[in-house]
C-alpha cells in the first residue's frame, strides 16, 4: 500500500488536465479558422457557403438537442421562415440593404420560435418532438398556400444586393467572407451561451429536469429562451442561405429538412460545439458526391442507414468519439 493520495493533488491534476484540454481546443479552433480563411482558394466558394449555412443551422439546432436535451422535429420551419422573409423583402424592396433583409428574416424566425415554444413546452420528451413536427407541418401548409412564397415553384432571383449598401455581394469571395463572419458570430454566440451560468442550468435541465425544478429554477422559462434562440439562429442560417443561392423553396420547410439537421447534429456529435459543424460538412459533402455518381437516387436510404448506424453504434458522434479517444490516449 502506498501513501494515501492527497485530495489536493487530484484537484491540481484535474485543473492541469482541464488546462491542457483547453489549450488543445484553442489550437484546434485556430487551425480550423485558418483553414476556413484560405479554403475559397482551393474549393468552390458557393459550395463552402452551403456547408457554412448548414453548419450554422446544425449548431443552432444543437443548442436545443445537445445542451438542453430537447428534440425539435420542426426546425425546418425556422430555416424556411428566415429564408422566405429575407427573400420576399429583398425581392420587393430594392432599397433594402442585404443585412437588413437578413435581420428581418432572423426576427421572423425568432417570433415563430416563440410561438412554437409556448405551445410545445407543455409536453416533454417524445411528445415535444411530435408537437414540433406537427406545428412545422402547419407552417409548411401555410407556405404552400401563401401568395408570396411562389408555392411549389419557390422564390427565385432574390438579389444578393449590397452589404451595408457598399460591398457588392455578387462577388462570390465577398459573399463567402460575409457568410463566414455570420457563421462565426453564431458559433461564438452559442459557445458563449453554453459556457455561461445560464448554459449550466440548461445542462442541469438536460441531465435531470425534476431536480432542476426542485432547486427552484423556472425550467420552462429556460427552455423557452433556449428554443427561441435556437429558432432565431436557424432563421439566420436560412436567411443567409437564401441570399447565397438567391432562392427559397418548399424543400427548406419540409419535414425532411428537420430530419436532416438532426442527422447532421447526431452524426457530428450532440453536446459538442464542433460536432454539428463536422456533421453538416459530412452530410452536405455526401449528398453532393452521391448526386454526382450513379447512386444519386439513393441519397435517402443511405441517409436513413447512417441514421440507424449512428443511433446503434456510436451515439456520441464523430467529434464525441474523437474526444473519447484523445482523452484516453493523450489525457
Amino acid at each position, binding site marked *: 500500500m502506498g501513501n494515501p493520495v492527497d485530495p489536493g493533488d487530484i484537484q491540481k491534476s484535474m485543473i492541469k488536465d482541464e488546462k491542457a484540454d483547453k489549450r488543445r481546443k484553442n489550437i484546434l479552433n485556430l487551425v480550423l479558422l485558418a483553414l476556413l480563411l484560405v479554403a475559397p482558394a482551393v474549393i468552390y466558394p458557393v459550395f463552402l457557403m452551403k456547408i457554412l449555412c448548414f453548419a450554422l443551422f446544425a449548431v443552432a439546432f444543437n443548442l436545443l438537442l445537445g445542451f438542453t436535451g430537447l428534440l425539435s422535429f420542426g426546425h425546418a420551419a425556422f430555416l424556411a421562415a428566415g429564408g422566405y422573409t429575407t427573400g420576399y423583402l429583398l425581392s420587393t424592396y430594392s432599397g433594402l440593404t442585404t443585412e437588413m433583409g437578413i435581420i428581418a428574416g432572423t426576427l421572423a424566425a425568432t417570433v415563430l420560435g416563440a410561438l412554437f415554444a409556448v405551445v410545445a413546452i407543455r409536453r416533454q420528451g417524445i411528445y415535444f418532438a411530435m408537437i414540433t413536427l*406537427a406545428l412545422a407541418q402547419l407552417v409548411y401548409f401555410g407556405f404552400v398556400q401563401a401568395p408570396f412564397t411562389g408555392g411549389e415553384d419557390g422564390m427565385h432571383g432574390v438579389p444578393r444586393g449590397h452589404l451595408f449598401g457598399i460591398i457588392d455581394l455578387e462577388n462570390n469571395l465577398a459573399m463567402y467572407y460575409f457568410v463566414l463572419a455570420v457563421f462565426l458570430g453564431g458559433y461564438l454566440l452559442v459557445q458563449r451561451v453554453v459556457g455561461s451560468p445560464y448554459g449550466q442550468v440548461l445542462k442541469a435541465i438536460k441531465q435531470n429536469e425534476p431536480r432542476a425544478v426542485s432547486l427552484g429554477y423556472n425550467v420552462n422559462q429556460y427552455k423557452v429562451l433556449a428554443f427561441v434562440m435556437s429558432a432565431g439562429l436557424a432563421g439566420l442560417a436560412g436567411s443567409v442561405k437564401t441570399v447565397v443561392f438567391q432562392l427559397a423553396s418548399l424543400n427548406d420547410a419540409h419535414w425532411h429538412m428537420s430530419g436532416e439537421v438532426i442527422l447532421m447534429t447526431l452524426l457530428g456529435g450532440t453536446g459538442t460545439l464542433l460536432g454539428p459543424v463536422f456533421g453538416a460538412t459530412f452530410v452536405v459533402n455526401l449528398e453532393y458526391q452521391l448526386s454526382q455518381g450513379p447512386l444519386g437516387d439513393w441519397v435517402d436510404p443511405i441517409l*436513413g442507414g447512417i441514421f440507424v448506424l449512428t443511433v*446503434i453504434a456510436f451515439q456520441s458522434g464523430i467529434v464525441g468519439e474523437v474526444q473519447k479517444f484523445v482523452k484516453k490516449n493523450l489525457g
Partner: protein
Amino acid sequence: MTMILGVPVAVLFGQLLLGIINGAFYALLSLGLAVIFGLLKIINFAHGAMYMMGAMATVIMFDALGINYWVALFVAPVIVGCFGMLIEYFLLRRIAGQDHIYSLLLTFGVALMIQGILTNIYGVSGMRYSMPDLFQGGFKLDFMYLPYYRAWVIFMALVVCFGTWFMIEKTKLGAYLRAGTEDAQLMQGFGINVPLLISLTYGFGVMLAAFAGVLAAPIYSVNPVMGSNILIVVFAVVVIGGMGSIAGAIITGLLMGVIEGLTKTFYPEFSSAVIFLVMVIVLLIRPSGLFGKEA
C-alpha cells in the same frame, strides 16, 4: 335540393362519409401507435412506412402472384408484422432502456430507408389496384350514395378497433400487456417472457398499420410515400387524444376525421391544417390531451 348553410345535403354527407373513412384510418394507425407506446415506450416513426408496406404488399402480391384481396387482407399484415418483429429484434432491442429520443430517431432512419428503397424500385407515381368485383356499386340512400367498399372499410375498422380493445382490456394476454406497461421488471420476475411479449406487441402494432394499408389500397393512391404525410397527421391525433387509453385513440381518430371532412365542405383551403390547429388549441387548454392521464 335541400341545403344546409348553403351546402347541398348530398355534398355535406358525402364529405362526412369521406371524413369518417379518413377517421377510420387515423383510428387504426393511432391505435397501433398507442399499443406499441404502451409497452415499449417508443413512438414508432416507421408506422407510416409500415402502413405503406401493407398497401404495397397487397398490390405487388396481386400483380406478381395473382393473390386476391381477401387473402391479402390476412397475409399482408402478417408479412409486414414479421418484418416489424425483425426490426424490433435486431435494432430496437439494442437501444432498449436508453433515452426514448433514440428510438424515435432509429425508427425515423428505418422509415427513410424503407421509403427510399421502395421509391427507387417502384417510383412515386402510384400503382393501380382495382377493388374486388363484389364491391362494385353501393347503397342508394335517400340523402346520399354509399359505395359498398366505403361501408366495408368503416365496418372492418370498427371491428378491428373493437377487437383490439377487447383483447387488451378483457383477455389474459391483454392483462399481461397492461401489467408489462406498469412494471416490466416485476412481470419478468413472475416468469413471463417479457422480451417475447415486447416483440409480439411491436409486431401486432405494425400489423394494425399494415392492415390499414390493405384497406387503403383500393381507394387511395398506392405509392412509397403515402405513409409519411398521414403519419404526421396521426402524430397530431395522438397528441390530441393522449396515449393513455385505447378507446381514447379510437374515438379521437374518428372525431378528427369528421372534423376534417366538415372543414373540407365549408372551408376547403383550410382542411389540411385543421387537425394541427385543433392540436394547438387542445394543448393550450388541456396539455395532457383529451384522454391523457399523465401530466
